């Protein structure tokens, strides 16, 4: 399998937070969801990939190239869509194009203007007056106009209405139909990932908690509920994010242990949101 991105033992320390041996890889032609609660290290990982943050140790390879030594070639082939506009808001679309096109060898002006029309973006309005959805589409148009083979999305859907989110997912689905293209999609809205991601990497407190296919993680865990008295201690110890309420308890469990559960305990498939919540509860419990 050809990997478009490989991160090995990435470490990066700040005063109050550190990334600890983060390792994961994205095969070419796929979408990877990159999830974790706020402060789990998603943005630091992305900033390290882009060289905005200096890694302490570890290796980051994109397209088989070193992200520090070969940054020029790498950045010709990637694009990043951020959660907020990273262009000066007093500019118009024509300024954005003339500002950026000279940096990219494969910039396609025709494609850029086609996308601007397709996304119904107003060319004569200052981009600072665009809605959040329009701003996100502008960044996508820039990404697609220089033929980026990897798009990194850093929480682009936060604050978007459902229609705009749906439009974004359609755009990404069309983009990924070219098997040379890949996406790393960092988001809090896990429903989006359940719809389009092939792989998922879950970060928790600066560490990779899970990395693998989406189907595997979605099948791997169940949420269990019931009366605390019915739950054997042995299973309680194996549960993740166990917490009790006045009327019972809730926790997450690996599906393979379900066969050991007493009949009184109910269980259902955990979705990505559940997984993130129970990981967070487990972390809080261990602090």
């Amino acid at each position: 399998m050809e990997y478009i991105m490989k991160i090995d033992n990435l470490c990066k320390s700040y005063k109050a937070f550190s990334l600890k041996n983060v390792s994961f890889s994205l095969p070419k032609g796929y979408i990877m969801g990159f999830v974790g609660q706020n402060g789990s290290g998603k943005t630091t990982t992305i900033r390290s990939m882009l060289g905005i943050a200096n890694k302490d140790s570890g290796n980051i390879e994109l397209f088989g190239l070193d992200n520090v030594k070969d940054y020029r070639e790498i950045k010709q082939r990637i694009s990043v869509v951020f959660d907020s506009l990273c262009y000066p808001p007093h500019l118009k679309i024509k300024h954005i194009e003339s500002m950026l096109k000279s940096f990219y060898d494969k910039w396609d002006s025709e494609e850029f203007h086609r996308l601007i029309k397709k996304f119904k973006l107003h060319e004569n309005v200052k981009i600072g007056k665009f809605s959040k959805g329009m701003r996100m589409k502008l960044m996508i148009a820039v990404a697609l106009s220089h033929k980026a083979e990897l798009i990194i999305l850093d929480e682009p859907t936060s604050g978007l209405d459902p229609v705009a989110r749906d439009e974004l997912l359609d755009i990404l689905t069309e983009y990924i139909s070219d098997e040379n293209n890949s996406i790393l999609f960092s988001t809090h809205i896990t429903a989006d990932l359940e719809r389009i991601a092939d792989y998922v990497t879950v970060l928790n407190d600066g560490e990779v908690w899970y990395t693998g296919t989406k189907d595997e993680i979605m099948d791997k865990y169940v949420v269990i509920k019931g009366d605390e008295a019915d739950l054997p201690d042995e299973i309680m110890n194996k549960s993740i994010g166990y917490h009790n309420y006045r009327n019972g308890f809730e926790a997450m469990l690996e599906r393979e242990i379900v066969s050991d559960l007493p009949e009184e305990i109910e269980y259902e498939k955990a979705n990505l949101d559940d997984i993130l919540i129970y990981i967070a509860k487990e972390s809080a419990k261990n602090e």
Partner: protein
Amino acid sequence: MSEILKLVKMDLIIIKNKSVLPFVFFMSVYMFLGYIISPYAVISPVLFAGFMIQPLFSIDEQNDMSRLYGSLPVSRRNRAIARFMSAGLITAIALVISMIAAFHSVEVGWFKELNPELYESYCIMQLEGITIGIVACFIYAVVCFILGIQYTLLYLFGASKEAFTMIATFLIILGFIIADGLLFDGKTMDIFSNVLSRLMIKSEMLFYIVLYGASVGFLLICALISGLIMKKREI
């Protein structure tokens, strides 16, 4: 080099739509007044030209543009160098325009009739060799010197400390003048002015080459220092 030029272009596009129009208006009014007062007054707005670039630092910070620069195929070092080059270029353009205007104001000669006293002092200065070209060259040197120090401080401390860097720049210059006066009896300044006077007497062209060269050179040294700061610093 092409990377730096692309970044200069980017700076100019950003600033063109932010502060160029107000500056052009300000410069035109100031120059027009200069036509009435003195050709030297026509050149003086060049002092402010380089500072037109300064809002770029706060635009960068307000919009977290480090994310954009981080995603572009450019180095951090070249980003810093390009910012200095943009300032030097804008000042140079303003200098050329204002010098043409200054010579034109001499041709038109409005100030001769409207301000005969100032005209007299202008003639005396010309006789003493303080030509429009020399004044313009000095102004360029002063702008490059101030910009070099202030932009380096901006890269060192960040755009959020803009007011501090402005004060610090003037304190550094003031400190240099006071230290020269107290410690060396003003000899450093004397040496500097003697060298320039000798150059001027020897060859005006050589004077221009040395002073313009030193101005651009100083800006370049500051740019390289800022480049090193940016290379090591996280953005």
